[in-house]
């Protein structure tokens, strides 16, 4: 949609979107977060590197849209003990870039870094990730069609990751 908006306007809309997503995740606003997804959304957290084939290799999360909904429903029960009590979270989103790659379907390729501080019953944990998004305008608003979270330490043994990353 670069033709419709100037680069600066688009960048500002994308930044606002990513900050909002971060806040909804940090504050456990699961339903509002789920509404950010397109109907064909894919939420992917690979394991063991950046470019594994999720159709062949194990990923930490590889959710299609219905499994995203299931994840949210489980969190909403209040009996998903690993989030009962909920982790206290704050994350920084930075290095937001429009990527050169233009997906065929008019989606917008965006990437950012994130640094997440989690305080849970277990302990305080620091998570760092590279996030890659495909965003799409739906009814005049941005939505996530694809989100890939590449944890810096995804090749190591990691603690439970049960909040929305």
């Amino acid at each position: 949609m670069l033709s419709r908006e100037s680069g600066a306007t688009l960048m500002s809309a994308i930044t606002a979107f990513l900050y909002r997503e971060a806040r909804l995740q940090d504050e456990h606003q699961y339903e509002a977060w789920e509404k950010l997804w397109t109907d064909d959304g894919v939420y992917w957290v690979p394991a063991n590197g950046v470019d594994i084939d999720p159709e062949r290799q194990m990923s930490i999360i590889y959710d299609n849209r219905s499994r995203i909904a299931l994840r949210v429903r489980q969190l909403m029960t209040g009996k998903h003990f690993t989030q009962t009590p909920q982790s206290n979270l704050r994350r920084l989103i930075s290095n937001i870039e429009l990527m050169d790659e233009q997906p065929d379907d008019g989606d917008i390729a965006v990437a950012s870094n994130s640094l997440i501080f989690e305080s849970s019953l277990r302990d305080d944990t620091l998570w760092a990730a590279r996030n890659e998004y495909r965003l799409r305008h739906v009814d005049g608003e941005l939505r996530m069609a694809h989100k890939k979270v590449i944890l810096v330490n995804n090749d190591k043994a990691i603690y439970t990751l049960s909040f929305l990353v």
Partner: protein
Amino acid sequence: MNMMTGVSPWERLIRPDRVHGSLYTDPEIFEAELKYIWYRTWVYVGHESEVPNANDYVVKSIGPQSVIMTRDEQGKVNLLLNRCSHRGNQVCSYERGNARSFTCPFHSWTFANDGRLVGYAFPDGYEGQDKSQLALGRVTRVESYRGFVFGSFAADGPTLKEHLGGAAETIDRLVRTSPEGEVEITAGFLKHRVKANWKFILENECDGYHPAFVHTSIFGVADSMIGKLYGGASTALTRDYGNGHTEIDLRPEFRKRDAPMSWFGTSEERLPDYATRMKAAYGDTAARGIMIDGTPHVMIFPNLFIAEIQMFVIQPLGVDDSVQHVTALQFKGAPDLNRRLRQQTMGSVGPAGFLLADDSEMYERCHRGVLARNPEWIFLGRGEKRERQDELGFTVGHVTDEVPSRGIWTHYRKLMEPA
């Protein structure tokens, strides 16, 4: 603690229906476990399919020790310790690959992938040295059962077959699920770390009492029939095979349903290619039986857990620090089944899994809980009075009974008694 003479410390800590909380938290006991369990008995290390070709290697572990599983030129599988025989540097820094030899980065000593020292830098300083005495350390005994490779650091002791005993049959049952009779471990591992003692994980794997409570959040929102298998009315069994091996036997429930592939929440119609191949391989009647019974839910002491669709490997790193390595089981010749196995496994286990995230929360809370020293004991008496022997003489109980934990601790005490 009662220091009566003639009573071993283990007898004081392990009773038929309860165990002392310090068994999970005492660092000295953990060190003794490394010596008497992890560095002495048979421990699962890896699967032959992880090193399919000559010179393939993959880095595995036995407890905190790094072990390189290699397939040498002759096709033999070796378990080598990842420690240069010169100054102790790790000779292998990649998780997997294909290499004829490993060269230590420190002083360039080079070892063949069967462990032999083949050369050192500046050999003129080593006159009279016998290279054969400077090989990489090895896991003393290596044996495999249907592709599952186990190692033992003890030169003597039971064979792997003797160690597996009655539990070997569960592995036979597992590989039959493949139309070609083989499991393949090819999907890569998720590595989930918990701040908890490894025995909380070991016991939980065949604890049929907890699912109705710990997994209520997912059973409540997903269209899952797993919950019913673990209810009070379930006909499923717990079993103690001896040698620390335990099972939850779900076959009575699956046989009642009498529907092929119901164990996996699906049907023959949805996996037509698989069903056809199974019938071609085993004949209609046997294939139907296999597809009704499903795969086992078995914990091979001390670290290999086969959970119907997944394989877990427990790794203790410290008294309160453990890793579960987990992957989807893959069955040779079953591509349509394998895809579903991977998808289901990714949903349920690993750090963000619908099931395992809550299990790991329980291990960690138990670990913090037992640091409180009163009451001192952990009660494991559920179902003690209704245990019985099955037709093969193994102790069985209701699926929610603590038969497995009692079996594990009986074996544990036998192993630890010399300490």
